[in-house]
């Protein structure tokens, strides 16, 4: 069991630092076992270093920075244990324009062999999509139409 765990853990760690570096343009993300000699008796710490800042535990980062770290963590598990689909509901709500753009590019790059269904209000996400579905209310009931690709966010 421990051997199996360590193999998985090391693979996710590697994925995490690669994806975190991509999302942050050169930052460093690290997963560390609190008790490496006996993993299950301790927890897993998540350290993040954003460009120009010191390394710190993710709990001390800002709202947007914690969203970026959570998304990188989720995508690092995805590479290891492919879930058939992902549903994200406005995960970009607290991201600034630059981070939204980086996220959109990263999702696009990782979408081969995966399915992302992403609810968003942000233009930069919509512009990178492969398919866009517009939801609207008509006569008190929700409807959905497939939108042509080069459209602005419905507002």
């Amino acid at each position: 069991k421990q051997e199996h765990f360590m193999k998985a853990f090391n693979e996710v760690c590697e994925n995490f630092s690669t994806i975190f570096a991509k999302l942050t343009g050169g930052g460093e993300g690290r997963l560390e076992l609190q008790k490496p000699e006996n993993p299950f008796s301790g927890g897993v710490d998540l350290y993040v270093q954003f460009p120009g800042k010191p390394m710190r535990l993710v709990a001390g980062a800002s709202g947007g920075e914690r969203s970026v770290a959570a998304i990188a963590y989720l995508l690092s598990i995805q590479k290891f244990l492919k879930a058939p689909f992902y549903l994200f509901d406005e995960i970009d709500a607290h991201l600034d324009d630059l981070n939204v753009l980086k996220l959109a590019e990263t999702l696009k790059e990782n979408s081969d062999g995966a399915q992302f269904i992403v609810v968003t209000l942000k233009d930069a996400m919509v512009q990178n999509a492969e398919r866009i579905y517009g939801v609207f209310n008509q006569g008190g009931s929700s409807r959905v139409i497939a939108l042509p690709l080069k459209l602005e966010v419905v507002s």
Partner: protein
Amino acid sequence: VYIKKIMIKNFKSFGNLVKLNFEPGFNIVTGPNGSGKSNIIDAVQFVLGELHTRRMRVSDHSGLIYDGNEEGGSQKASVAQVTLTFENTDRNLAIDKNLVSISRKVDRQGNSQYYLNGKRVSRRAILDMLEMAGISPGGYNIVLQGTATRLSDLTPQERMKAFEDLI
């Protein structure tokens, strides 16, 4: 396996039958506040067998059923239904078909009925089949509105526990 089609009828704000055809890759869902975007995600949780109405943002099962609109002339519905069709060419779902559809109905008393390719089955049968392909209603692959930082806000112990569950 991926989601090929979702059909929603009388589930939350979907008073008419709505069909959504999805493809693999990067799909975006957008629209004004209150248009029904999160309700689509609730519909997926519902058909995957989610029992906690709180996770679908309602206080009881009748909150899941379209409650009509006097002005628009549409009536309160008595049953909500969602059908999800998976593309299964890779046979990750242990069913020997290219398309596998699951369906769930619920009435205002909270009685649910589940269907697999049109045949009535138990909830347990649906959950067991989905689990083999790494699908469950409360899975880490579904991130609800307002919880984007959840994976960063876990304690180290919770993170280890989530890791053990995944492996």
